[in-house]
């Protein structure tokens, strides 16, 4: 959409404009939800389960309720509401049983945080502790204890998901492309491996926080740190059975989200406490520890890939089996499963493919959206697998990737035809490879090896992702002119750090041909004032809100031209405009200013015409379809953003210690709207990917208790951890229906950083890593061909990588889904 940039002035789209809300943030003036004071505000605390799986025998809240200053105490049985977007499986407080460590079983609202904390201590809970189901490979077995015995009663989105009541399978997504058996017949090599990664915490610097008041007459106001104000309202109203016009959701500045603040979280509980407390507003901010286990994380994944390849390097068939460890609730994990399924083969042309992707309930903190929406997790396995295949067939890994990349005429796993406009994965791969001098060592690198005794390795990995969203996802933008001719844009796409307000301001300024200083994007989002947007997720904001904003600008100009044509006594087609005024093309001295038109034009005799100028833009994804439930065929992708990373590491061949020296990344973004913001997403995502690759992950004891819910035991990258050289590159293959050709790149930089590092380590040492994060001891053990260590659940097999044995034992429900091993099957050495 709108691919030509204005020539009358320096284009605004593509320029490095300063972040529009930056000053408020660097002065400390920006107000976040946790900074707000609402008159009469109470403070909430929750009582949390110390057990992963237990029956609640009794809860005694008498002492807590009697404590002076306590206004409300709630337990699960006081609340008859379930909450969810895709599968409605979560009570606001645990009822009868607890399903994960850290789950809330009771809550208090009191006049101070200290009183609320004392009251929570006074609540007595008696549990009957049960053995938890922690390993998804156990959870899928027929005789596994059920995490959700009532699954059959849950509502869910039937067009997209297939829960299997009576089991722990919250969803099974299948993809069927081509003839898998024939594909394996054609193969000369079959390589099969299993890849794993643990749950990970998003770690927004601002933990979840909300303030909610439920006034008489069921008038509810929610101030919250959320990515998606309208989804908070929709889910809240659905759970509470309230009309939407009685519930208002307000979101000020948000201190990072990364997916963890999509959907709905603390808001329903605080609303219920407020209702009991007579309408007093109730505030709660999660502690950092609560952020790890009361609030959701990223799901763990076990990904098994079996690939058939010819000796010339062409992939003939691939069977992919995903076990997504949803944890105790699967509302989002079911959709992560679905989005990962149609994307599971990566940017490769795989003629015959099956995916069986299971979402499994276990007794662990639950998963939700996290930057990349499944792709960070499965690309670890996929891009390590491509490396191992190349090694097995003795082909250069870069050549092997090039040979199998998607190209115009290829089809995706769900049957979408790739064209020259879809994007260019080849250019991304080649650019990243060239930037690290892939395939050779420079003289400096030779010298580095000689001097340090460490070995340098170089590795590549590709990535792709489409927004995971309903086929009919919609956004709107409203642009209102002020009486001085400046404009304010209202939209519900939330600025959470990604820079959308700046990008939208640039697009509007470009479209209007106004200087950007005349364009303001409202910071605080309010469902009573902003037009609808589905969510701020999935890297879909640029295309959907960008297009809605272009349409809103066009509508504003059309309205302005209509009035101006009356004022100037000509037809709109004879008019043109600049940043100040509308004028007659062939008589530029005949003009009327936007300021004169902005709230209605007034003739010299006092007559008024027009009225306040407003433009409305509505945009909905078009042409997308549901996926066939049996075959997964259909059109789920608004757009595809491709990318690739090249990584240089040096590894101590004795100890396995390694350092990431350099990362170079390239993405096909269609059109750069703001280079500094694209670079910011690239750098930030890459370093978040580095954390996931090297050190982050949940560790449990055998009882399912989370052992590392803090920054002491769950490190995230600091400034000292970043590589010395980071290169961010872009390719611009215009997205035909993107704003000025642009497409999203918010999530992509985080995807495939880990396998690029793993591949570089393999290049240096031969270590065949199957588990991420990659710690020095993992490298050391892999170099020695030792069984990987496993401390993700201490003394249990999670995190282990036993690929040969598992072919026969992978406990899938329907064994017939796995093709029998081919005759003379080869497993790479």
């Amino acid at each position: 959409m709108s691919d030509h940039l204005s020539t009358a002035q320096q284009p605004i789209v593509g320029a490095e404009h300063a972040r529009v809300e930056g000053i408020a943030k660097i002065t400390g003036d920006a107000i976040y939800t946790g900074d707000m004071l609402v008159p009469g505000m109470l403070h909430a605390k929750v009582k949390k389960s110390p057990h992963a799986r237990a029956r609640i025998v009794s809860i005694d809240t008498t002492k807590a309720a009697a404590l002076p200053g306590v206004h409300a105490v709630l337990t699960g049985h006081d609340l008859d509401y379930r909450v969810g977007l895709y599968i409605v499986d979560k009570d606001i407080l645990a009822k009868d049983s607890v399903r994960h460590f850290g789950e809330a079983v009771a809550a208090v609202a009191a006049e101070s945080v200290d009183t609320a904390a004392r009251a929570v201590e006074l609540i007595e809970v008696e549990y009957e502790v049960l053995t938890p189901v922690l390993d998804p490979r156990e959870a899928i077995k027929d005789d596994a204890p059920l995490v959700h015995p009532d699954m059959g009663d849950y509502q869910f989105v039937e067009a997209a998901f297939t829960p299997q009541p009576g089991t722990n399978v919250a969803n099974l997504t299948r993809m069927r492309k081509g003839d898998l058996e024939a594909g394996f017949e054609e193969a000369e090599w079959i390589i099969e491996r299993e890849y794993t990664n643990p749950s990970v915490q998003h770690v927004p610097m601002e933990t979840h926080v909300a303030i909610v008041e439920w006034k008489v007459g069921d008038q509810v106001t929610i101030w919250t740190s959320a990515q998606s104000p309208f989804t908070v309202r929709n889910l809240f109203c659905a759970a509470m059975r309230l009309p939407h016009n009685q519930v208002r959701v307000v979101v000020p500045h948000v201190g990072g989200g990364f997916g963890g603040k999509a959907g709905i979280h603390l808001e329903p509980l605080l609303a219920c406490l407020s209702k009991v407390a007579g309408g007093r507003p109730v505030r709660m901010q999660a502690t950092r520890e609560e952020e790890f286990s009361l609030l959701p994380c990223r799901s763990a994944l076990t990904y098994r890939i079996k690939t058939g390849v010819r000796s010339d390097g062409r992939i003939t068939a691939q069977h992919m089996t995903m076990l997504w460890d949803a944890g105790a609730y699967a509302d989002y994990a079911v959709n992560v499963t679905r989005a990962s399924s149609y994307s599971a083969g990566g940017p490769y042309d795989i003629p015959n493919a099956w995916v069986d992707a299971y979402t499994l309930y276990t007794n662990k903190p639950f998963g939700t959206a996290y930057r990349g929406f499944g792709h960070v997790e499965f690309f670890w396995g996929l891009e390590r697998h491509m490396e191992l295949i190349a090694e097995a067939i003795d082909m250069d890994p870069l050549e092997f990737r090039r040979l199998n990349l998607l190209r115009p005429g290829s089809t995706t796993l769900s049957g979408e035809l790739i064209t020259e406009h879809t994007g260019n994965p080849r250019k991304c791969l080649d650019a990243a490879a060239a930037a690290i001098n892939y395939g050779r060592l420079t003289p400096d690198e030779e010298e580095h090896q000689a001097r340090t005794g460490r070995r340098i390795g170089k590795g590549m990995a590709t990535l792709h992702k489409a927004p995971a969203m309903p086929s009919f996802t919609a956004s709107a933008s409203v642009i209102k002119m002020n009486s001085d001719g400046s404009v304010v844009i209202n939209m519900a796409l939330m600025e959470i750090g990604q820079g959308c307000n700046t990008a939208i301001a640039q697009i509007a300024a470009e479209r209007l041909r106004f200087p950007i200083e005349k364009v303001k994007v409202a910071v605080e989002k309010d469902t009573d004032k902003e037009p609808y947007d589905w969510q701020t997720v999935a890297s879909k904001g640029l295309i959907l809100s960008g297009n809605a904003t272009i349409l809103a600008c066009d509508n504003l100009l059309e309205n302005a031209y209509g009035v101006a044509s009356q004022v100037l006594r000509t037809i709109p087609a004879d008019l043109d405009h600049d940043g100040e005024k509308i004028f007659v093309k062939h008589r530029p001295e005949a003009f009327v200013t936007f300021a004169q038109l902005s709230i209605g034009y007034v003739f010299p005799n006092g007559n008024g015409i027009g009225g306040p100028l407003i433009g409305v833009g509505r945009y909905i994804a078009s042409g997308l379809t549901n996926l066939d439930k049996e075959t997964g065929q259909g059109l789920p992708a608004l757009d595809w953003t491709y990318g690739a990373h090249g990584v240089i590491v040096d590894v101590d061949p004795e100890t396995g210690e390694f350092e990431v020296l350099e990362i170079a990344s390239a993405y096909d973004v269609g059109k750069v709207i703001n280079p500094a913001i694209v670079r910011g997403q690239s750098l930030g995502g890459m370093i978040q990917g580095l954390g996931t690759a090297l050190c982050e992950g949940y560790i449990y004891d055998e009882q399912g208790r989370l052992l590392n819910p803090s920054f002491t035991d769950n490190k995230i990258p600091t400034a000292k951890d970043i590589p010395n050289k980071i290169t961010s590159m872009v390719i611009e293959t215009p997205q035909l229906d993107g704003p000025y050709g642009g497409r999203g790149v918010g999530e992509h930089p985080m995807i495939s950083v880990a396998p690029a590092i793993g591949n570089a380590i393999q290049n240096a040492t031969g270590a065949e890593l199957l588990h991420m994060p990659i710690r020095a001891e993992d490298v050391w053990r892999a170099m020695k061909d030792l069984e990987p260590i496993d401390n993700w659940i201490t003394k249990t097999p999670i995190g282990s990588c036993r690929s040969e044995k598992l072919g026969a034992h992978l406990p899938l429900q329907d064994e017939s889904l796995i093709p029998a091993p081919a005759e003379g099957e080869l497993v790479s050495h």
Partner: protein
Amino acid sequence: MQVSVNVNGMAYQRDVEEHWTLLRFLRDSIGLTGTKEGCNAGECGACTVDLDGQTVNSCMVLAVEVDGRQIRTIEGEADHGELSVIQAAFARQHAVQCGFCTGGMIMSVRDLLRRTPRPTVEEIKEGIEGNFCRCTGYEQIIEAVLDASDQLDTVGKGELKYV
């Protein structure tokens, strides 16, 4: 307990409870919310302030300890509506995304540049090591510090490359 402090040049006298941290005192008692709580355990640096010329994690200091002392927070960084050199560099170099770590980050940079007016990249990394940022990947923050210390021309900075 009564505490008298000077914050950003303004004198305050307040009654505080003994267990209140300086962070809580600044936010809840004085109303300066630019100092953020990220972990309340002294690990993330979002609550960094200047106490008598030294940066501290204000979640690790009790309010009663600051009686009679001078504190400077992010709200004291701009001077009569003019951004400081560091703040202007942060804006220019896109060193801010969600902004939640930014106040504490700028306090640490201020301390670094006072001690080391022209820090090397390595010294910058060490200077802000105690301040977590989950958004930026630190690179543009490092470039902002180079800019603020007038070294961008000599050290150079990264650019988005069009292929």
